[in-house]
Every structure is written in structure tokens, then in C-alpha cells.
């Protein structure tokens, strides 16, 4: 029996790889799912934002002209930026510690990073509500230590959203940095010390620059996730903290202005894609973020 002839009359050249026919067959279910569950709906979204009820770019114009929406756009980026910066500030030391200690401490730190990662965003956002309520943990602690007399209004503020988003996204910043720092050979720091560098100098001149790829990956992932976050701002935010995602939700379910919601969503999508492309070009990252 001869090896299968391909449609174009040529034969496969090597048994190491599956021939194109078989490979295409294997990936067809996925392509179909992608089309039905993703490409078609998103395409329809884009279509609807331009061609419904008549062909116009008015929806996009609204985003750019009405001050409310520009404000929302700006706020979204601002919050994403602040969250990313905070996550970097808080996450870098943890990643460093995780990579440098060993034994029980390492396990403990890993657990503290992974457990939040493995729990649902909804659960964690809910927990923040519990923490920031009038008679929640934070207010109780503040009152008991005498820092304030009456419970503060912490919920539904921008601060609450930022704090919660930072906590939710922190593991996404820590893990890429950790995995890069972990691979820096110990000998490099020792060599620097041997050559006369103090601890801090060795860190700044050796570890820090070498951790850069991990930092970039972490920053990219955290920023992109912040842009599109829905659950946390929806639960913890108020009218004064309207972000792109919650605005889109509002337009879809409350105001029922679907074409406009489509325009907003498409804008968000393209902003995200643009960021990914720019970052990838700048840093030649070619691996997807590995989970678990």
C-alpha cells in the first residue's frame, strides 16, 4: 500500500510529521469552534458598530468627541497604568524572594502566590467587598486602632477598584519575573561580589538588568488584563469609576445601544491587540504566557 497521495499529487516527504491532510483534519474542530464562538461574534460586533442601522462611523466619532467617553477611555488607561505600576512595585520583591529562598519558605511564598491565582476573580472581588464595607475588616481595624472615628466610605471608590485589581493581577506580574530570575545562575552574582560589588550594587548591575524580560512580560500581561477587566470594576466601582469594560456592559444591558457598545468593544479590542503587537515587536517575545 503506497503512502497516501496528497490532493495535489505529491507525496508527504517525511514520516516525522503528520501530512497536511491529517494535520488539517485534526485542527478543523478547533477552527470551527474558533469561528463560531469567536470570529463570527466579534466580526458581527464590528459589523454592527459600523453598519447598523445605516453605514456610519458615528459611533466611533462619539467615543472621540463626547467628553464623557474620552474621560472613560482616559480613566481606563490611567487605572491600568496605576495597577500595573503597583503590581510591579509589590510583585518584584516577592518574585525575587521566591526565586532566592529555598525549602519551606519557598513553598510558603509559592502557595501565597498560587492560591489567589487559582481562585475565581468573582470570589476575590467579593472578598474585597467584605473587607471594605462599612463594618468590614478594614474599617473595623481603623476604628479600633483609633485612626478614625467613623467608618470611612471605602467601597465604590477608585481606590477600591485599584486595590482589588492590583491584588487580583499581582500573581500575573510575579510569575513571569520569578521564572526569569530563577534562571539567572547564582554564579553571576557571586562573580560580581568577588569582583568587588556590594550586595546592592550586584543586584542593580547584574540581577536587575537580567530580570528585564520577565518584567516586560509581567508588565504586558498585567496591563492588558487591566484594560479589559469587568468583574472587579463592576462589583467594586461606582459611577465615578466608570471604565471601558463597565461602560460597555452598561451600554449593552441597560441602555441597549448595541451599535455603540460594539464600537466601544471594538476600540478596546484593537487597543489591546495594538499593545500586544507593539510589545512583541519591541521585545521579540514569542511564547504565550504559560499557566500553572
Amino acid at each position: 500500500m503506497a503512502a497516501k497521495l496528497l490532493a495535489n499529487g505529491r507525496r508527504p516527504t517525511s514520516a516525522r510529521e503528520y501530512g497536511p491532510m491529517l494535520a488539517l483534519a485534526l485542527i478543523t474542530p478547533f477552527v470551527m469552534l474558533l469561528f463560531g464562538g469567536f470570529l463570527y461574534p466579534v466580526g458581527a460586533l464590528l459589523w454592527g458598530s459600523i453598519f447598523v442601522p445605516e453605514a456610519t462611523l458615528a459611533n466611533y466619532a462619539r467615543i472621540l468627541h463626547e467628553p464623557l467617553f474620552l474621560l472613560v477611555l482616559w480613566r481606563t488607561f490611567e487605572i491600568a497604568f496605576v495597577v500595573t505600576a503597583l503590581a510591579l512595585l509589590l510583585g518584584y520583591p516577592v518574585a525575587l524572594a521566591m526565586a532566592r529562598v529555598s525549602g519551606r519558605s519557598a513553598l510558603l511564598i509559592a502557595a501565597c502566590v498560587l492560591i489567589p491565582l487559582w481562585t475565581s476573580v468573582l470570589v476575590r472581588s467579593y472578598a474585597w467587598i467584605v473587607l471594605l464595607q462599612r463594618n468590614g475588616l478594614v474599617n473595623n481595624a481603623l476604628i479600633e486602632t483609633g485612626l478614625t472615628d467613623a467608618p470611612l466610605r471605602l467601597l465604590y471608590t477608585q481606590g477600591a477598584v485599584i486595590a482589588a485589581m492590583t491584588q487580583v493581577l499581582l500573581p500575573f506580574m510575579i510569575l513571569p519575573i520569578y521564572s526569569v530570575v530563577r534562571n539567572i545562575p547564582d554564579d553571576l552574582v557571586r562573580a560580581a561580589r568577588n569582583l568587588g560589588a556590594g550586595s546592592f550594587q550586584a543586584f542593580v548591575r547584574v540581577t536587575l538588568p537580567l530580570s528585564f524580560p520577565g518584567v516586560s512580560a509581567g508588565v504586558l500581561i498585567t496591563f492588558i488584563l487591566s484594560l479589559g477587566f469587568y468583574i472587579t470594576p463592576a462589583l467594586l466601582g461606582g459611577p465615578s469609576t466608570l471604565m471601558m469594560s463597565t461602560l460597555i456592559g452598561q451600554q449593552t444591558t441597560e441602555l441597549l445601544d448595541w451599535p455603540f457598545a460594539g464600537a466601544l468593544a471594538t476600540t478596546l479590542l484593537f487597543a489591546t491587540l495594538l499593545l500586544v503587537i507593539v510589545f512583541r515587536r519591541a521585545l521579540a517575545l514569542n511564547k504565550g504566557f504559560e499557566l500553572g
Partner: protein
Amino acid sequence: MANADLVLAEQAAREKRPLAINAATLLASVAIGLILLFLLLPTLIVIPMSLGTSAYIEFPPHGLTLRWYEAYFTDPDWMAATWFSFRIAVATTGSATIIGTLAAVSLVRGRLPGRELLRALALAPLIVPHIVIAVALYLVFAPLGLTGSFYGFVIAHSMLAVPYVVITVSAALQRFDPNLELAALNCGATRLQAFLHIVLPNIRPGVAAGAVFAFLASFDEATVAFFISGVEGKTITRKMFEDIDFNLTPLIAAVATVLTVVSLVLMSTIEIARQRSGQGRLG
């Protein structure tokens, strides 16, 4: 990687160093401890919350009781939502694992025209914000009356879950020696036989990990579920969302705890299995 030497050397050096350095290390440890607390507290606080006696949320809880769990398990709406989510998650796990494994095999071992593009597309659902997907699906489902439909959910969640399966199975395939497949062919096996008898048993951990991710990606998923839930077909996450807004009681803490426990148990299982097979921590 293990810094026992460095730690010892540093400890030795520390004995000769001035007090200032010790203070710095202590400060650093405290700071990191606080950050870790920041990470962990909002995650685990739901557990003691769910055991408190008072009717509204408070911490620390005054007494211990299981009445919220009782309320949860006896409430028909909650049970319906839980069962709905569970069924969807199981179906999603099945379909995403199969579709994702086949796709991973094709992407890693197949001579595919446009392979790079397909690889990028395979990971696209991870990059696209869930709100965009949620709204897009809602706008397709709502006019057709498909909100709350079981199959609509399975399609949506499978699409979200497949990238995870593709990632884990691809990694397992790349670690797998291609010569073993050739040896199997030489022994007389067809491609299918070689895959079933030789490849699959050896990539089982990757497939299993992918399946767990798929399950959690569906069960825990909140954004898309919020938008495409209907009156009849409501997921546990959607109901949680609603009740947080309108009906905030410690019962929600009980539900949250259940969700958390399920996630933690499943993910720990994978992690332990990975440690056993000697693959090291965290990828």
C-alpha cells in the same frame, strides 16, 4: 537555584557585618510578609466569613455555624445554578480537551500551511478581553433567544478553555521523543494506533492538566456567564453576581468558599502530580 550555599555564606558574612544590614533584611522580610498577606487575605477570608452566625457580613464572625451552607444546599435556585454550572463545566471539559488535544497534535506534529497564524489564533481567546467576547456573544445570542442555553454556554466556554488545553498538551508533546512514534510505526502500528498506544499514555499529565484548567475556566468564569445567562439558564457565577448586588448575606460567602475549595483541590492535584513526575515548580 537552591541557594543553601549563598544563604550560609551570607549568614557567615552577616555575623561580621554591621547591624544596619540585618535591619534591612528584617525590613525586607516584613515588607514581603505584608505583601503576601495582601495576596492571601482577600482570597481566604471568605472561609471564616461563611461560618459566622450574624445575618449580615461581619468580620471577625461572632459565632460558628453551618447554617449558611445549609441555606445554600437547600435553596432550589442556588442548587439549580450550581448544577447548571457543573453540567456546563463537565461538557466544556470534555469538548475542550478533545478539540484542544487534537489541535495541539496538529500544531506540534503536523505540516500545516499557515501554522504560525493558527498558533497565534489558538492563543487569541486568552488575549482578548472577556468583556468583548461576552458582549459579542450576547449580541449574537440575544436576538436568537439563545441566552441561558446550555449549548450556547458550552460553545462559549469551550472557546475560552481550549487555549489552556493547547498550551499544556503542546508542552507535553514537545517534551515527548518523536522517535518513539517512529519506532511504533516501524513495529507495524498505524498513525492512530501509535497515537493511542504510545503518544497518549505519555502525554497524559499534560492532557489532564489541560482538562482541569478547562473545567475551572468554565466553572469559575464570570464575565461571559454574566452576559449570556438567561432567566432559566443561570450560572452559579451569575447568581452570585446578582445576589452581591441585591441580596448580600453570608450565604454568598458559603458559595464562594465552595468555589474556592473546588478550585484549590483541583489545582493542587495537578501541582502535586507535577512535583511527583519531577517537572519542577511553576513551569
